[in-house]
């Protein structure tokens, strides 16, 4: 507040409020452009590593901007809104982007994505995500959605000569464009029936039982479900996860989903809170089917990243349980879950990236055979992440699961909670399968561990969070409880 007032006093410019509110996005956008120019003229051979380092630097400054200017308000004629919730989502998105940078820092060459475009595209997509969680009108919403998605389509195709990567990119692009079309059609319907695209005006009008609006909502929800890979709109996820290089897979699995969840929360809790009853059933179906598909579908998978894809579908189902609950508890549960899940996924991908077999990245689950004999520490880390993803106490995943089902029961969704925990037992099976391969089986060809400093840091950080979450719980509790919609 102090800094903001100081700036305001010294710079008597009309509209400075809005610019300050959007300062992280503006900063990232401008500095990305400057970075491109710098890259062309100065970086030469070390282009990738330097842009990568600068990218981290830019994101860190953006985090400080988001933290130091924690003012809330509406800007740009009501198109843009900064709330405590959006600041939370911005921070968690920015952290996940830092993890992407760190994961790719030394591994890009090995994974075949050593192009400095990777870093620009990542930054631009980040910019889109930050705007998305702050959008306050359907126009901003859609534009930000596209700004977020378009760089990702290109990133998927960065590994030009790889046929799987090309397939993944095409699939992601086609289905992503289709879902954007759905969303746009839904928006147009809502505009037609409400007469406004501003979130505020939409939320002020009573929307009860209007066929057109419900139809538009269903279309928007379907499009959003595509983007967060919730069943029955999940088909792209396994193929895309399998085909893309691991740092990009990690990126697709975290940041865009977090940002879309952020705006989905805002839409459901605030904008369409009047017709929550209709929405709730739809999300219930999404949630249940995601849990079902994610837990059953992963059992037969042999490819590690396909398995992670299905597991992320199941986890999306658990997260949506919190949204079905439609309460403050549910909101907080989602926030906890996202933090926990982000760190777990970071750890898992850091381990996947640090291992190689026959000079190739590991792909199959059976590639992990005998990991324990070769690299005990790494395998114990992966063991802890797997138990945590399965939701076994006292690891962090348990607390996420617990909070989510707590919110469901608190709102009276008993059957959903019971089905949810039963599915979580099913999903425990395939996490155990990975542990079995690592610990109970031996292999002839040794796995090579090639973890650099950044990756080791990420593994240790994730390990710390997932083992000691019970001790950090009160701290998170203090932070998250103050967040209101």
């Amino acid at each position: 507040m102090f800094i903001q007032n100081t700036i305001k006093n010294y710079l008597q410019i009309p509209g400075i409020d809005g610019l300050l509110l959007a300062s992280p996005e503006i900063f990232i956008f401008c500095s990305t452009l400057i970075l491109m120019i710098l890259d062309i003229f100065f970086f030469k051979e070390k282009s990738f590593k330097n842009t990568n380092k600068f990218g981290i630097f830019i994101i860190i400054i953006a985090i400080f901007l988001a933290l130091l200017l924690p003012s809330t308000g509406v800007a740009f004629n009501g198109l843009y809104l900064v709330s405590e919730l959006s600041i939370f989502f911005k921070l968690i998105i920015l952290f996940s982007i830092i993890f992407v940078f760190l994961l790719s820092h030394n591994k890009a060459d090995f994974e075949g994505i050593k192009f400095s475009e990777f870093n620009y595209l990542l930054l631009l997509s980040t910019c889109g995500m930050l705007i998305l969680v702050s959008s306050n009108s359907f126009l901003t919403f859609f534009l930000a959605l596209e700004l977020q998605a378009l760089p990702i389509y290109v990133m998927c195709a960065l590994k030009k000569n790889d046929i799987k990567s090309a397939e993944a990119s095409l699939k992601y692009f086609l289905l992503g464009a289709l879902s954007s079309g759905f969303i746009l059609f839904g928006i147009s319907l809502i505009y037609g029936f409400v007469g406004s695209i501003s979130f505020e005006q939409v939320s002020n009008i009573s929307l009860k039982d209007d066929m057109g609006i419900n139809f538009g909502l269903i279309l928007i929800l379907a499009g959003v479900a595509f983007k967060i890979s919730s069943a029955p709109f999940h088909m792209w996820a396994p193929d895309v996860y399998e085909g893309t290089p691991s740092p990009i897979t990690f990126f697709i699995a975290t940041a865009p989903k977090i940002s879309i969840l952020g705006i989905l929360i805002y839409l459901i809790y605030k904008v369409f809170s009047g017709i929550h009853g209709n929405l709730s059933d739809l999300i219930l179906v999404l949630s249940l089917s995601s849990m079902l598909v994610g837990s059953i579908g992963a059992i037969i998978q042999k490819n590690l990243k396909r398995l992670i894809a299905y597991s992320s579908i199941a986890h999306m189902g658990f997260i949506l349980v919190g949204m079905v609950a439609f309460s403050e508890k549910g909101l907080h549960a989602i926030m906890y879950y996202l933090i926990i899940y982000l760190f777990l996924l970071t750890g898992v991908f850091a381990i996947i990236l640090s291992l190689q077999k026959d000079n190739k990245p590991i792909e199959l689950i059976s590639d992990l055979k005998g990991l324990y004999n070769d690299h005990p520490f790494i395998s114990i880390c992966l063991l802890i992440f797997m138990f945590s993803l399965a939701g076994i106490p006292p690891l962090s995943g348990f607390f996420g699961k617990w909070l989510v089902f707590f919110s469901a029961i608190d709102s009276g969704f008993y059957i959903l909670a019971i089905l949810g925990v039963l599915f979580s037992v099913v999903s425990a099976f395939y996490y155990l399968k990975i542990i079995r391969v690592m610990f109970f089986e031996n292999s002839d060809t040794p796995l090579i561990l090639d973890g650099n400093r950044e990756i080791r840091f990420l593994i240790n950080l994730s390990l710390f969070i997932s083992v000691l979450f019970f001790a950090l719980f009160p701290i998170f509790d203090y932070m998250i409880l103050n967040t209101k919609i």
Partner: protein
Amino acid sequence: MIEDWPILSILIFLPIFGAFLILLIPNKLNQDGEILKNSITNIKLVSLWTSIMTFLMTLLLSLKFNYTEKQYQFLEFYEWVPSLGIVYRVGLDGLSLPFIVLTAFLVPICILCSWNTIQHKIKEFMISFLILEAFIIGMFSALDIVVFYIFFEAVLIPMFLIIGIWGGVERIYASFKFFLYTLLGSVLMLIAIIYIIATTGTSDLIQVLDYDFSKTEQLFLFLGFFFSFAVKVPMWPFHTWLPDAHVQAPTAGSIILAGILLKMGGYGFLRFSLPLFPDASLFYQPYIFFLSCVAIVYTSFVAFAQQDIKKLIAYSSVAHMGFVTIGIFCFNTQGLDGAVFQMVSHGIISGALFLAIGVIYERTHTRDINKLGDFATTMPKYSVFLMFFTLGSVGLPGTSGFIGEVLVLIGSWKVNPLVAIISGLSLILGAIYMLRFYRKISFGLSENQDKYEIHDVNMREFMILIPLVIFIILFGIFPNIVLNFLKVPHFLILETFK
């Protein structure tokens, strides 16, 4: 001074501290790529001394324990997550103390019995065992439902690894079955726990006990808890994981599984189901009697048909735990006393039997009852030990097995004579299969006994077996050592039924 110390938390975290110390012992390799003998010895010694220290601490606790006090003792209370009403509260009463002592008593025995049998990954084995011990002690002393649940389920992680890494041929199947079966049971308890917290606003057991749930709520919540405890006990028909897990687990794993993990179910019934849901407990009493009677009769027959001696003991465990559930749901002093006493005595006896089987298996590498025999001449000392354990398991007067069974029979006669008759008659079945087991092993002629070089129990085994025999007889003659602890908690449980 020392009274102010968080002595119970120290007890819970002492094994974890020991595990941490073991972690620090370097894995120095010699030229052949094996860990140096020195560090292996160090690992074993550190784990042994940690577990013995834990045992001594539990003895200290039971000496300082005041068993006329109605409140929980050694209480510790810390705010944990205030917004959700979760507190870290641990404390002891007469119900939990015997189990904690039993745990701390069995763990050094487990460590000693795997002294030479565990050949690979000894460091990890000891670490998992100590962590397992910490979780179990934590579970028995938790007075907050969430803390209880966390420890209750956390036990699965080290146990899964113990079965899966150091187990027998079919270990992967057995470990998966064990893990998923128990997890499936306990997630339903999670739902029940969440419901309790959502309605009462707290997870502190002392406060939750004051809340009166309506009859319908009780009926559902009881079922949620029932499934997780029934899988753990295990009651028929939820017992199928037990034979697999027992057969495949290493000897130490079997001891801890039969000795302690099965008791978590019975303890859970006494700690949560009965005091929280008295109406539902009364409602479900006949069904539980039915399941328990089936368990006793059916598994006795199944045990009789077994070729694998570990499986035989596993099925006999199910039968003995059937007595426990009958005793618990009698809702009178004798029944409850008998149930808890039976749990303690079964913990010692079944642990001893698995240990004895481990001793044979180390020498002959077979568990087939038809291939074993004539140990009375080849291993006379061992046969004497085995006789004590067998007779204890049969329930001969003078051994601890007798007290538990007879108290349960008295208790159940008061409620339902039919149940008492059925379970009383099945004592004969128990005698039949256990005596057949002993006859074949000690006196029968084995087919291929010449193949093995059999020597009698050595000093280490002697030192492990002796305390078990002593306790079996001591508890058989002076049952009040245990029963004194149980008077007050059982009185309090029964008060809720009036």
